[in-house]
């Protein structure tokens, strides 16, 4: 128990330091807020009439539909930014300082992921507030807000594990930055910005089974239509699946680093 508390304190301290690092480095912070906000504004202003398409979900306005996509987009950027910051730490050998301390090596990764999850929660609050200010409606009210914040934080953590694994494997911030465009590919081939049922094949098929669509719908349903246990369970499963894959990749990358002596 004592060890657990000590580890928790270390993870919290490293998480706090990671959040400060993000807030103090504009190039890490901008992608989390500026890009998704700009895309939300452009999409909402330019494609607002999409709600009139046959088969489009029944929503009060396009902003209400878009909100979940923007939250997931910002969340993925958070994971990516966290991974870039982690790779920078490795490049400048700050991680050596941490590994030379009497802490579990996993705490270094967990501290980074704790920061990513916290930033994910902040992002959810930001976009929900932005949406409410500009006319979005949250169908399920306060419980939905709490659920969305929790799901977004968990998603950020899960996405962050993939980024952390790439950072651990590559040891190179440029490589991690190189996966940034993939975020757009994954998102545009999901339900994030357009309903999968209105896409052409094979994009529609890909979007239907894209785990990121499950996460988007888990956030979107309580906003636009109401709770659906199946949708939320799929979202949880997607988050757990992505997180489990990411943690496994992180563990493998850590073992590889130890073996290679990086």
């Amino acid at each position, binding site marked *: 128990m004592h060890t657990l508390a000590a580890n928790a304190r270390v993870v919290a301290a490293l998480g706090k330091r990671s959040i400060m690092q993000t807030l103090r480095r504009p190039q890490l912070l901008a992608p989390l807020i500026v890009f998704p906000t700009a895309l939300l504004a452009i999409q909402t202003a330019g494609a607002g009439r999409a709600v009139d398409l046959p088969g489009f979900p029944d929503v009060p306005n396009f902003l209400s539909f878009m909100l979940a996509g923007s939250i997931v987009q910002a969340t993925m950027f958070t994971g990516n930014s966290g991974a870039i910051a982690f790779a920078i730490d490795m490049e*400048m050998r700050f991680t*050596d300082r941490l590994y030379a301390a009497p802490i579990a090596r996993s705490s270094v990764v967990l501290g980074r992921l704790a920061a990513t999850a916290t930033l994910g929660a902040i992002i959810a609050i930001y976009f929900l507030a932005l949406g409410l200010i500009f006319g979005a409606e949250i169908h399920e009210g306060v419980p939905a807000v709490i659920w969305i914040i929790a799901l977004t934080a968990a998603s950020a953590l899960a996405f962050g594990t993939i980024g952390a694994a790439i950072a651990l494997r590559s040891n190179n911030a440029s490589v991690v930055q190189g996966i940034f465009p993939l975020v757009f590919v994954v998102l545009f081939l999901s339900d994030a910005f357009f309903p999968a049922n209105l896409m052409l094949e094979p994009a529609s098929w890909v979007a239907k089974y894209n785990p990121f669509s499950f996460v988007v719908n888990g956030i979107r349903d309580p906003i636009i239509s109401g709770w659906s246990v199946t949708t939320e369970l799929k979202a949880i499963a997607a988050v757990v699946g992505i997180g489990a894959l990411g943690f496994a990749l992180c563990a493998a990358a850590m073992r590889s680093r130890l073996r290679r*002596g990086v």
Partner: protein
Amino acid sequence: MAAIETHDLAREFEGGIRAVDGVDLSVAEGEIYGFLGPNGAGKTTTVRMLTTLLQPTGGRAIVAGYDVAKDPGAVRRKIGVALQEAALDPLMTGRELLELQATLHGISKRDSHDKSRWLLDRVGLTLAADRRVGTYSGGMRRRLDLAAALVHTPEVLFLDEPTTGLDPVSRKAIWEEVGKLNQEGTTVFLTTQYLEEADQLADRVGIISGGRLVAEGTPQALKGEVGRPHLELSLVEQEGNESRAEAVLARFGRPLPARDGVLMVEVARGSSEIGPIIVALDQEGLEVESLDLVQPSLDDVFVQKTGQHLEGASEDTDETEAVVE
């Protein structure tokens, strides 16, 4: 009990590169051990193994009584590490870094505030405590790095090239601090490429080359191994007098081949022989223009043991003069 002890310590990397190839060394408690070697000799790899950052692929290393491979956590609790590249986050303030370091070592929040304040004062960074590290000079960074390594009062302190790239004043400040720490009982394992640094600070020196320890001993003993002090002198009227002068000098020690007109002779008893030599030359009507007593240096040791000069050796000499000035 030795503070650091290795037996046949080895590290082989992928591709069969053997960076450290069977190193045996023993560092006594309270000792400053200077670890010298050119780039790529294996000294940083050795330090990384001793500080648990890298697993050995062969042999054994005991640091502060614990095996680095079997009980790395216990080793980390006992050691302080200041790394070669001063791995500091430029976005953190000095105080934040020390408080984080204290947390990593399990020091309570309140104690970490007090310890950080005390350490910042000790290394002369109180006024810069709340500035971001990115605004610090090289010397300030090294002092902060040193303070971070001391936050948990380690028994053994590893300093990996702590003064590389620093100006002479900053270098001297670090030396003074290392000396103070050692007087307080801390064992110091110091890697350096500055021979003067090892000469000034180290009780004993180990020279690594090609992954193997090729020499070990006190600086004096090592220098004694490569030769005696020698006298270099030139005469006011050298032409035609060289052979007479050499005959006089030969009475005092083994003559060495002249270099660029400078006559040289080994003098077993060092400076005490200067007076008699000048008198003897004077009696022969030979007037001395300049005279230098040259002691063997660690660079001479290094050249003899490794066949090459240590990087930074020439820079070392220049900067030493600057310090003296």
